């Protein structure tokens, strides 16, 4: 059998994957509006900070646990960690984003003949849960799946910044080149995170996202 895992990963993290991730900025739009982020260096600092202190503390450790749970057909653990991620989402917008991307990926996987999750959730699932299922179903090694998740998140955040800050295309690519070097460290951090320490929050981001919910004029849904 051919090893297609790399190609499957590229498929999963492609910005053309029709789940609508481009519609969300995760509070960045408000942070820019508030002039917390003005320059390309500040975009980069914002992203690497969120990656190391947010994504690496919740999304990635949960992705590892959900990957194992799907691999072992452990539905109770899938439900538990899915619920845990949703309970950690700081605001309604961040929760809604996670569930809307989750349900979109869930539907897409069904159309690609993956249906193991159909009776598992009574709420819309977290994106993290569906990402893990795609990884397991397509035999993508967990390590690569983690990096792919970070990449996909980062590329989307930079794409948002091109509109909010705004940035030129070249600046955006330069930020990506530099910021991606933080991904391996985030992945190794995530592997060390124990259950009781998962989900460390970011107070400033939580406020930014709450305020974005009431932002008068906006391009993004989060």
């Amino acid at each position, binding site marked *: 059998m051919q090893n297609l895992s790399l190609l499957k990963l590229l498929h999963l993290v492609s910005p053309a994957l029709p789940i609508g991730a481009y519609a969300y900025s995760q509070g960045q739009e408000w942070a820019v509006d508030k002039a917390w982020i003005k320059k390309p260096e500040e975009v980069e600092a914002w992203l690497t900070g969120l990656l190391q202190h947010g994504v690496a503390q919740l999304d990635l450790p949960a992705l590892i646990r959900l990957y194992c749970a799907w691999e072992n057909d452990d539905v109770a653990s899938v439900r538990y960690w899915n619920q845990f991620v949703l309970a950690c989402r700081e605001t*309604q917008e961040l929760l809604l984003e996670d569930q809307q991307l989750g349900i979109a990926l869930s539907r897409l996987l069904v159309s690609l003949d993956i249906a193991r999750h159909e009776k598992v959730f*009574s709420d819309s699932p977290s994106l993290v849960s569906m990402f893990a299922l795609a990884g397991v179903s397509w035999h993508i090694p967990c390590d690569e799946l983690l990096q792919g998740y970070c990449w996909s998140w980062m590329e989307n955040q930079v794409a948002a910044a091109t509109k909010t800050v705004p940035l030129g295309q070249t600046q955006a690519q330069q930020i990506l080149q530099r910021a991606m070097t933080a991904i391996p460290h985030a992945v190794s951090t995530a592997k060390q995170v124990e259950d009781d320490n998962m989900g460390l929050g970011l107070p*400033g981001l939580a406020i930014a996202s709450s305020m974005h919910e009431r932002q008068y004029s906006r391009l993004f849904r989060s």
Partner: protein
Amino acid sequence: MVKTISEYMSTTSALPTTISKSSFESSDAITSEASSQRREWLAKLQLEFYAREHKTVLRRVEHVGPLRVQKPFYPESRGCCHVYLLHPPGGMVVGDSLKIQASLHPNCHALLTTPSAGKLYGAKHLKEKQHQTVVFEVAANSCIEWLPQETIVFDGANGELNTRLNVQPSGKFFVWDILRLGRAASADHFVSGQCKQALEVWCNGMPVFIERNYVKASSEFSRAHWGLQNANTSATLCASLVASRDQIDQWLEYLQQHCGDGMWGLTQKQLASAPGEAASQIDRPPIFVARYLGHSILDCRRGFEFLWQQSRPLLNQCEAVAPRIWRT
């Protein structure tokens, strides 16, 4: 009045060092200054609330070490039991552990508060932590309100503050957790040390709301815009109520106008049901969240009290009656 550490230490050494373990689990550390270098002092308080015909009563109180409750007050017409928790030493030094546990049996209504701020004193770079664990068991149709004063984290502290609610789906709650870093008034800034803080709501063994912060002094977290932005007051309020968009807009406007030294974030979390389901099949409480980040403990407290007074009718159909001790 804030005691100095030496005053506190002399107070503690005057108190008995042998503590009966009573019904608590045997793994808990008991004062053992004599036997080792590690100093540990455990204080525990366990409360149980039962519903009687016209009021909620506090029936069983067990305590170990210096944690107390006063005789409950009943300032409300519908029998809500107001309880003040006292920790006479006034603060926690390294190795101290406070455990507060309250069980609300069905149909109870209890409001718990503290007369003064909690304090985590400097730990002098020792590895031992200062632990505070608060656990509430909230049975069907009961309502807990946990409205403590802030916790002041002194420079050099090594604290861990956990607040956990285990609620039945019809259980109600209104809780807040206010962290004050350093003592701005006496220019004692929080430049070293750390504090982990968790506020969690669980329902039938599943997480409903999880907020965990790991505040490390002089770190990227304490400076960054996504972190504390150098603010010394960070606070979260979580309640099982549903506020409309208009209500939240009005509350936010008030907070920004009248408690505007700092930033406010209000949000109503609502899980989206699975496709084809009209509503979630899982019964659990709604989650309203308010957060404050800034430099004014006064605005933070006033803002939280405002939200409590405004939203209490939504929570449990009662008008807010502020605990008397807040006004003294």
